[in-house]
């Protein structure tokens, strides 16, 4: 680890550990990557771990007698252990999936499609990513259940009183995002989980944008289900996780059926393996779990408290810097203590696509669009926003480059 002993992260030193920032771009453009909320860059140690797995001990897991297969299993299960440790969750109740979206669908299908009845209600917030809306809509349409949306204020906060009022005796599930991928809002998930549990409903927390950026304690959040995804936390694509209460997992029927997840298969029927394997059908994302384990170790070595402090400081800087751009409006909370460093904004009448395109020519990568949160876009009264988002490798220069490019952009498009 090349970070200094001081409390603050040294983002410049961290960049040196990410191959994406080390090699110059072929056309000489700088790289101010401000799209980490979409996906993060990967440190060399993550690529190394996956390459070493493929070179040294690639074999299918869990059943092989030969040593290389046992070693492959160890490295794979190490990824699970690391991910569970990061969020303070029992490892046997951490199911590895292909992404956060599959993890939510696992619950929607394995639990919802079987258990929901006509008239049952699923409560989500207007701030959810499509991945925490559409699975519920799909199983609702199959079962006759309804999906209700808790309102979000124009300032980008969940209206807790309205949410409380929505939760009632028909509520079977309350699903809420921990940190908004659009606005950066940090939601009071413990409070939301408590509200739901008091009404006897289950809870799903989408921690996709929190786990990469701050200490997250799944045990203290206390939700029945919590999901996150590898590629946003310095890990590879192709892996995500569902952290569930062990009792809940044991009580649930399986989702995907196939190899690995069975105890016995006969022509009459089948019985299931222990958790978590009961929910992992087929050859799992082995190298990806290895990479995720390396990403977790990297984050742990940085220290999640310091990662959060860097995120807070970056959010603060970004909000200040963007505030100085004429014609720019920041959406969502402006208090850096209450948000992550994913910041959405509008710039006069310049369209987000044009902003993102212009910024790209200056080496600044940002996202433009609805950010898979169309219901939230309607609340905000827009079709799309531009979003800049940070991670541990984001420096002050990145933010200043963003600011400068935005000022130029505005005049270029004649706004």
């Amino acid at each position: 680890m090349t970070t200094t002993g001081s409390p603050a992260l040294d983002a410049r030193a961290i960049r040196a550990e990410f191959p994406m920032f080390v090699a110059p771009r072929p056309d000489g453009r700088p790289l101010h990557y401000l799209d980490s909320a979409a996906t993060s860059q990967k440190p060399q140690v993550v690529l190394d771990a996956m390459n070493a797995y493929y070179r040294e001990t690639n074999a299918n897991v869990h059943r092989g007698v030969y040593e290389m297969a046992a070693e492959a299993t160890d490295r794979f299960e190490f990824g699970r252990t690391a991910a569970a440790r990061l969020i303070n969750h029992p490892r046997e109740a951490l199911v590895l999936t292909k992404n956060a979206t599959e993890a939510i669908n696992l619950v929607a299908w394995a639990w919802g499609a079987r258990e929901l009845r006509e008239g049952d209600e699923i409560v989500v917030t207007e701030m959810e990513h499509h991945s925490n809306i559409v699975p519920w809509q799909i199983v609702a349409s199959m079962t006759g259940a309804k999906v209700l949306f808790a309102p979000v204020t124009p300032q980008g906060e969940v209206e807790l009183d309205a949410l409380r009022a929505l939760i009632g005796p028909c509520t079977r599930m309350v699903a809420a995002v921990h940190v908004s991928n659009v606005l950066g809002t940090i939601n009071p998930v413990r409070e939301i989980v408590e509200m739901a549990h008091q009404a006897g409903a289950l809870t799903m927390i989408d921690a996709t944008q929190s786990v990469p950026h701050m200490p997250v304690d799944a045990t203290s959040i206390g939700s029945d289900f919590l999901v996150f995804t590898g590629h946003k936390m310095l890990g590879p694509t192709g892996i995500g996780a569902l952290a569930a209460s062990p009792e809940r997992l044991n009580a649930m029927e399986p989702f995907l059926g196939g190899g690995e997840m069975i105890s016995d298969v006969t022509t009459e029927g089948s019985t299931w393996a222990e958790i978590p394997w009961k929910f992992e059908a087929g050859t799992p994302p082995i190298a990806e779990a290895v990479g995720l384990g390396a990403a977790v170790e990297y984050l742990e070595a940085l220290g999640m408290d310091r990662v959060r402090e860097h995120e807070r400081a970056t959010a603060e800087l970004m909000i200040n810097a963007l505030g100085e751009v004429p014609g720019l409006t920041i959406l969502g909370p402006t208090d850096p203590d209450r948000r992550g460093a994913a910041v959405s904004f509008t710039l006069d009448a310049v369209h987000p696509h044009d902003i993102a395109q212009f910024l790209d020519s200056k080496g600044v990568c940002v996202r433009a669009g609805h950010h898979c949160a169309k219901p939230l876009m309607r609340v905000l009264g827009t079709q799309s926003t531009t979003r800049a988002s940070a991670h541990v490798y984001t420096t002050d220069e990145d933010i200043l480059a963003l600011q400068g490019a935005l000022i130029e952009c505005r005049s270029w498009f004649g706004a």
Partner: protein
Amino acid sequence: MGGLDDLYQQLILDHYRNRRGRGRIENASASVHEHNPVCGDECFLDILVEDNRIVEIRADGDGCSISQAAASMLTEVVADKDLNEALEIVEHFRRMMHGDAEPDEDLLGDAIALEGVAKYPVRVKCALLSWLALRDAIASYRETTAHGG
């Protein structure tokens, strides 16, 4: 910043800043509403058809410079065209956007300036939004009239 100038040619910015054919038509022969799933942008397109000819065309809705300029150029280039001709122009434009056709200025008019968009796959959807809306509007017009509407 060569790439940027390539994409945002002066003609495009001009159409973007001074949009032609914007608005709605009260008594349209066909109206369609399309949206771009990538950014959520919407396009409302109305045509007034007489004797198989587009006598009026208007496009409304917000969008990026590319989608606005493309809509503006569209309303100019297909105005007063026969429906089949209009479809031919749309098809030629679509193929240019997918890199499948040498652009023909006689067919495309100002819209030839959008050629550079083909290199930006995400923006191709922006440029095509109103143009494909016209294709759908013509189809819908023909369907209604065929059914005696």
